[in-house]
Structure formats: structure tokens, C-alpha cells
């Protein structure tokens, strides 16, 4: 076999396959693909030990475009497939990619259990609040009133908040970013990669064909300063142009409030400081919605906890502490007798 020494420095191109990318022109998935390829290059990830697993949907085509190992599976089941991959070989670096329908509707159960088990995966949820591949039906994250082929008079069911869901089921790493934040997104992905356990990253992604502008109320240039807050552990929760606004904790009502520095005697000392190990704070941040509050982006929550895959293999190692099992002895288990 030909042994080739890897190039000195990997680039994003090293993680791109020769396959023609088949998303709609202008789809937010292109930007996410580029961010992921950049991130892996910057992390100097080993392509042969990296696996991308996906379910069904536009986002689920992702593995075909990554020059790593990849498994495009069935609708909603990618977290369960990835669980099997990781349990079988914990050395692999396993990424799961899917959309809001895939991971929160048909596959919501698997997403929940992967997160609560804290198996060491990066789960990237591309949230575009719509079903793209099936041509535009409303999704479990669509806002009430979404008009779609299946809801011509507007959708009537409450949407789920991906980040709040992940926090609620005991996630140990919950972060948010957006397809258009090409500097922010790779930094979040790097944190996700560094975390041991299930790293859940919700990426707001624009579907240019069926739900164009779903997030423009906080992503457009004209509003992004006022309608986004980029949280960082240990840093005051400031946002707005010139960081003139911030969040304070109203302790009597147990909620966050947006304030302007200098108004009503507010100083920077009044501004809450982000503590990513505080699940209550993370939940309050995840709940914030425009127009009264900015959307919180960045690492909302991160805690260190045992991973499922490590614990499974620790039990196996414990069972083998006195040596590998003796199969002949196992066959002769229980009561035996000899017939002469």
C-alpha cells in the first residue's frame, strides 16, 4: 500500500470532497460547510478518525461533502447511529448533522437520549424553521402562524426552543451561532469539539427558498448589534453598538432585563456576568427573544461530566480486571453433569 505522509498544514480544502455540492444557491448550509471545514483544518483534525453522521433532510447531505468517513442514514436516527459508532470505537471523533425536522420532530427522542446520556458527540442542529427537502412544510421550530403547504391558514402549534430543550434534558454543552457569523461559528465549533460529552450546537440557518429571512430580525446588519448578544464565560453580558447595553438580573422576578448603561443610574457593575456553568442563567439566556431582548449566541452552558461512552468502556475494563473472560468456563456455567 502507498504510504503518504500527511501535508504539513491542513486547509479547509483538504476536508472537501470531489462531490458537487447540491444545496440551493444561497443556502445557509454552504456557509456552515465552509465553517466546519475551516474549523477542522484549524484544529488539525485527523480526517481518517473523523466521522460525520446524518439523518435525512437538506442538512443531512453534509457528510457527502466532507473528506472524512461519513454515514448518511435515515430520518431522525442519526444520534442513535452515532451512538453505535462511538460505543464501538470511542477513538473516533463523531459529528452529527441534521435539521430541525430531523432532530426535533421525527428524531426528537434520539436527540434527547443522546444529550442526556452525554455521549461524546458534536451535534450540529441546522435550524431553519422549515422543512426544506420535502418542499416547505412548517417544522417543530416554526413560529405560530407559519403559512406553508400543510398549514395554508397558518400553523397553530407552539414551536420548541432547541437550546431550552437541550438544557432541559440535562445537556452538558449548549451553544448557538448562525450561518452568517463566519468568525463566531468556528470559535463555537472549536469549543464544541473540545468538550467531552454531547456538544449541542444550534445554528440558525437561512432557507432561501422556503423560509427566507426567518432570522433577519436579529441577523440583518442594521439590527444585529441590538438584537444579538455574544456571551462569553466570565465576561459581562453586554451588547449593542459600543456595548452600551447589557443584561441585569432582576432578582425579585427571577428574570433577565435589557438595560442601557448610563440610564437610570445603571453602571457596568450592575451588569450580570456570564457563568456558563450556571444552568439557570443559561436557561434564561436561551429564553430571550427579540424585540424586547437580544438573541443569546455563543456557549450558553458548559459543564464537565462523565461521558456515556467512557463509562461503558470503564465497566468493560472493570469486568476484565481479573483478565479476559474464559469462554469454555462460560459454556460450562451453572450446573453441569457428565454422562459416561
Amino acid at each position, binding site marked *: *500500500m*502507498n504510504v503518504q505522509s500527511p501535508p504539513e498544514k491542513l486547509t479547509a480544502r483538504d476536508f472537501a*470532497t470531489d*462531490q458537487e455540492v447540491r444545496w440551493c444557491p444561497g443556502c445557509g448550509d454552504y456557509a456552515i460547510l465552509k465553517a466546519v471545514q475551516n474549523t477542522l483544518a484549524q484544529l488539525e483534525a485527523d*480526517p*481518517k*478518525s473523523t*466521522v460525520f*453522521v*446524518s439523518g*435525512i433532510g437538506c442538512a443531512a447531505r453534509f*457528510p*457527502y461533502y*466532507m*473528506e472524512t*468517513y*461519513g*454515514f*448518511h*442514514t*435515515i430520518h431522525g*436516527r442519526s444520534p*442513535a*447511529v*452515532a*451512538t*453505535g*459508532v*462511538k*460505543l*464501538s*470505537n470511542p*477513538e*473516533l471523533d463523531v459529528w452529527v448533522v441534521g435539521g430541525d425536522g430531523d432532530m426535533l420532530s421525527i428524531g426528537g*427522542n*434520539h436527540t*434527547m*437520549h443522546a444529550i442526556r446520556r452525554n455521549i461524546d458527540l458534536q451535534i450540529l442542529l441546522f435550524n431553519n424553521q422549515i422543512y426544506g427537502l420535502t418542499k416547505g412544510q412548517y417544522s417543530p421550530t416554526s413560529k405560530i402562524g407559519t403559512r406553508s403547504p400543510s398549514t395554508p391558514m397558518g400553523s397553530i402549534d407552539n414551536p420548541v426552543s432547541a437550546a431550552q430543550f437541550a438544557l432541559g434534558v440535562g445537556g452538558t454543552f449548549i451553544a448557538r451561532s448562525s450561518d452568517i457569523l463566519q468568525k463566531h461559528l468556528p470559535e463555537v465549533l472549536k469549543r464544541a469539539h473540545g468538550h467531552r460529552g454531547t456538544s449541542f450546537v444550534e445554528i440558525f440557518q437561512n432557507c432561501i427558498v422556503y423560509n427566507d429571512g426567518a432570522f433577519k430580525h436579529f441577523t440583518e446588519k442594521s439590527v444585529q448589534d441590538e438584537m444579538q448578544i455574544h456571551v462569553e464565560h466570565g465576561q459581562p453580558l453586554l451588547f449593542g453598538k459600543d456595548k452600551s447595553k447589557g443584561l441585569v438580573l432582576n432578582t425579585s422576578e427571577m428574570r433577565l432585563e435589557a438595560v442601557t448603561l448610563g440610564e437610570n443610574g445603571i453602571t457596568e457593575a450592575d451588569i450580570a456576568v456570564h457563568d456558563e456553568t450556571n444552568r439557570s442563567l443559561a436557561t434564561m439566556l436561551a429564553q430571550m427573544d427579540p424585540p424586547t431582548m437580544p438573541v443569546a449566541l455563543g456557549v450558553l452552558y458548559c459543564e464537565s461530566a462523565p461521558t456515556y461512552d467512557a463509562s461503558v*468502556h470503564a*465497566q*468493560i475494563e*472493570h*469486568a*476484565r480486571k481479573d*483478565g*479476559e*473472560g474464559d*469462554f*469454555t468456563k*462460560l*459454556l*460450562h*456455567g*451453572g*450446573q*453441569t*453433569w*457428565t*454422562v*459416561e
Partner: protein
Amino acid sequence: MSEVAAIDRPDENRQEIESAVVRFAGDSGDGMQLTGSHFTMTAAIEGNDLSTFPDFPAEIRAPAGTTFGVSAFQINFGARKIMTSGDQLDVLVAMNPAALITNLADVKPGGIVIADSGAFTDRNLTKAGYTESPLENDSLDGYRLVKIDMSRLTVEAVKEFGLSNKEGLRSKNMWALGLIYWMYGRKRQASIDWLKTKFAKMPEIADANIAALNAGHAFGETAEMPAELGTFEVERAQIEPGVYRTITGAESVSLGLLAGSQLAGLNISFCSYPITPASALLHQLARMKNFGVVTFQAEDEIAAATAALGASYAGSLGVTSSSGPGIALKMEAIGLAIGTELPMVIVNSQRAGPSTGLPTKTEQSDLYQAVFGRNADAPMPVISVSTPSDGYDVAIEAIRIATKYMTPVMVLTDGYITNASEPWLIPDPSTYERFDVEFRTDPENFHPFLRDEKTLARPWVKPGTPELMHRIGGIERSYDTGHISYDPDNHQKMTDVRAAKINGIADDIPEQEVEIGAAGGKLAVVGWGSTYGPINRAVTNMRDDGYDVSQIHLRYIWPLPRNLEELLKTYDQVLVAEMNTGQLRTLLRSEYLVPAEGLNKVNGKPFLIGELEDAIRARLEK
């Protein structure tokens, strides 16, 4: 309790019999399964061949005294080869009225009915649906009825240990066991040893149970015993020499999965979700961690199947297990395994359906689901387990086929086999031929759907292998590159090659043999799975009576053995006996255009030998 009491005196006047069928029946809290398994262990140690059948309710602990809370354990043991757990009972031990009313119909005319008269209270009689005690009227005149107040005698026997009345009564099953041991001249020592070990930390419980066991035995020995009760001797059977153990189907399949994975040189990832009667497999394998076995109790059946497939993708042997309704949920994942051509083993412990059906009752009604139950043209090998011990070899064979041909394989077993037990001549693992998996590591001309010319199998690559990074998935793959392809002609080609690969397995499995009898003749009784025992005994009996009948029993359901069509066409009549409404019969008729007829039942119970004999007689005397 002194050891002296456990001496078992030989009885010169025992009646010698070839075999006997005994059923212990009582409340699900009465410990009937334990009682039965003790009697089984002792019969095995004393050299009988045997077969057992536990029959327990779907409810975990149904209200005491009710008919739906009756739990029973049947054992057929003999001095000859035992093929089934027995059609009719020689002895029924009924611990209460509900046990009597639900089991009496199975007692042979003139058979022995031993009833705990102490449990035949007005309250219990009413719960069972009796308006008057059957022990006091003439309704049991056709049987040899033995009324014993086992409840009172047990409480008396254990009172010296300071247990409450309720606690004392819990040893009633051991009292009954002691009596049956006496009836058949069995030694008590194995049970006494077991009780001492089991209750080592609760010596008063151990002593009470041993006292009850001895008291039941002593009751038989003394003059107190009614004359209706005979004493019997069942000689040792002619059995192949070697070391034996008893084994259930769940045990044999789990041991076979481990053995097969070792022969393939693979780690096993067993992913499952609890379901009756398949859970026993998960429990068995969860205790094999010292062999590197990964077990994963998934959040649902679908996750179990997909996690198993993920494990196979990563280079382990992925195995999932369930029963009918759970298998239905796994089918989309199995379709993905067929499309991506990854090895996987699916164990289906069939039960009565549709839907929840009768979860604790056996059936063979998933053959269609196994062979045909997926969207699109999705062929998959299916093999079946015929006896409780057969699961060992069948599981190994499933792994051999799955890994050699890069395909999921379904193993069909059933609720009867899973729970039933029989003696097993423990095999020597070193006598099995290895079939080590060779993972692809060579990047030269590699693509993921490059096929082996002979087997048509694609290469298996472990993620982590340098220079072989590739993507696979559910979208149709190009025959020539392995990349996704929407080309219609390519889909035709891939569909054809997937079918050819599975059909080709017929060249790699044994030709179908005639189990009893010979090719050609008036009638072949064809079966598969757990009907093996009763068909075998029935055909043997009928041949002894001069009937021209043969037994053909299939292990391979799909693909079918190469010679099967030719073989079936040598008989004047083909009778397919199965516990469904005719699924194998349909398959054989559609594949071979043979005029096969069916003998079918779905009452949750295995075939009786008599039912099969009647059917054979009817066809050969018409």
C-alpha cells in the same frame, strides 16, 4: 435440620416407566418456575433426557388466586430421547383452584392430580369460578385425585424457625417438590445444596425451605400417603457421553453470538430495547462484559437497530434483538443495512400477534415479516432456531453469513424456544472453523461498493483506516464508484446485484436433508423452528406404526436450500406444519409451485404430538 433426613431410601416396589410429564401450577407468587427448574436439574443429574416448558402470565404479579395469575412449569423426562415437553400430563400439581381449573384439561384420563386442599377456600374457589369445591364432588372422578393440605403441613414443618404464617407458606412449593421427588425416587441433595447457597445470608429461610422439602418427601415415605399415588422409576436415558448442562434458547443464542463474534475476530455491540420474550438475550449478554461485549439498552427499538448498525459501520458486529412488534419498528434500519451492505444480526423472538397479541405465548408468525417485511426489494437471509440448544449453532451461522456477505441476517426463534430448556452436550469451541473478517486497508483502486467476484460482497472498512475515507448512505449508490447515483439503469443493476448476492448464499449452505425417512414417498411433513420436536416424535411414532411419512425440517428460510424444490417434488403429499396460518406453506408454493398443504395452529401453545399424528393419519388413510 439434620442431614440424616435427606437420605433417600431406595424403594423396591417402584413401577418402571419410560417417561413422565409433570406440571407444577400455582399462583405466580407460589414459586412454580423455581420448583420446576429444581425438578429439571435433578432429572438431568440423574441421567434422564428431558424437555421443559415454562408458562407464565403476562402480568407481573396478578392478583392472588385468579386464573390469569396462574404460573406453570412443565417437564417431560424419560429413559428415552425426549422431543417435546409432552402432550398430556401424567401428574398435575395444583396449588390452588385457579391452577386446577386452568390446567385440568391437559391431564391425561386417569392421570394424577395433586391438589393443595388447604388452598381450596371459598374465596379461592369463587375467584377461580367454581361454585362448589371440585375436591368434594364427583367432577374429578376420571383422575386419581390426591388431596393434601400442603399449606397446613408446610406451616407445621417450618414453625420451629420462627417464621410468620405468611412467610412459612412461601415454602409450600418446596413441600410439593419434596413429594414429587419421593414419587419418582429422586435425590434431594442438589436442591438442598442450592437452597443453602442461595440463602446463605438468610439461614432461617434456607432451613425452612429444606425442612419443607424434607417434610413433603417424608409425607410420601410414611404410611400417611394415600394409596392412589404410585411410586415410579424413570431409568437413565441412552445419551451420548460427555459433559452436559441445561440450556434455554435465550442462553444458546447469546452464547452463540459471543462464540460467532470470536470466530469472526470481532467485538460485539448488542443494542436492544426491553420486550417480552426477547429481553432475556439482553440480560445474558449484559453479563458478558468480561468478553468485551458492549451492551446498549437503547431508548427505543429504532435506536437499538440503528445503534447496532452504527456499531457495524464502525467495525464491530452490531446485533439487535426484539420480538414481532419491535422488529416492525426496526425494519427501516434493516433496509438501510441492506442498502449500505453492512453486516448485522437481528434476533427475532417471535410471539403471538398482531400488535401486542399474546406477549408471553409462542407463535411462528413473523416469517413473512422476516422474508418480505421491508419497503422496496430488500432481500435478507433468514435462518431459524429449531430447539433450545440449536440457537448456539444458528447464531454462529448468522454471523458467518452476515460478515461474509456484508448483509443483515435475521434469526427467527420464538417464545417457546427462548424459555424452554433441554440438556445440552457442551461443545468444544476449538472444533469450530474460524471465519475471521478481513477489513479492507488497501487504498489501491478502492471504492466502497467494489465487489468480491465470488460472493458479490463489498469491502468492509473500519473508520480510522488511512486513505480509505468514504461516504455511504441510504441513497442509491453507483455500482462503479460507490457515490450517490440517481441513474435509473444503475438502480436496476444494483437491485439485481443485491438479489444475486443473497440468492448466491444458497450455494454456501448445506443441501436440505431428510430428518427422518427418505426422499420419495407418500408424505413429507415440513417444518421450521420450534415445531421440530413434536414433528420429530410424531413422524417417528407413525413410521413405527408402518406409515410412509418423512420429516423435513428447515433451518434456512431465505434463501432456501438449492435442492429443496427437487426434494419436495419427490413426495406425493407435502404437509407444512407451523404455528401460524400458513406462511412457510405460501413461500414454498410461490417459489416451487408445489401443492403443499398446511397444518396450522395459533393458540399460543406448541403442537401436540397427537395433533400431528392425527393429521398424518388423515392424509395417509384418505
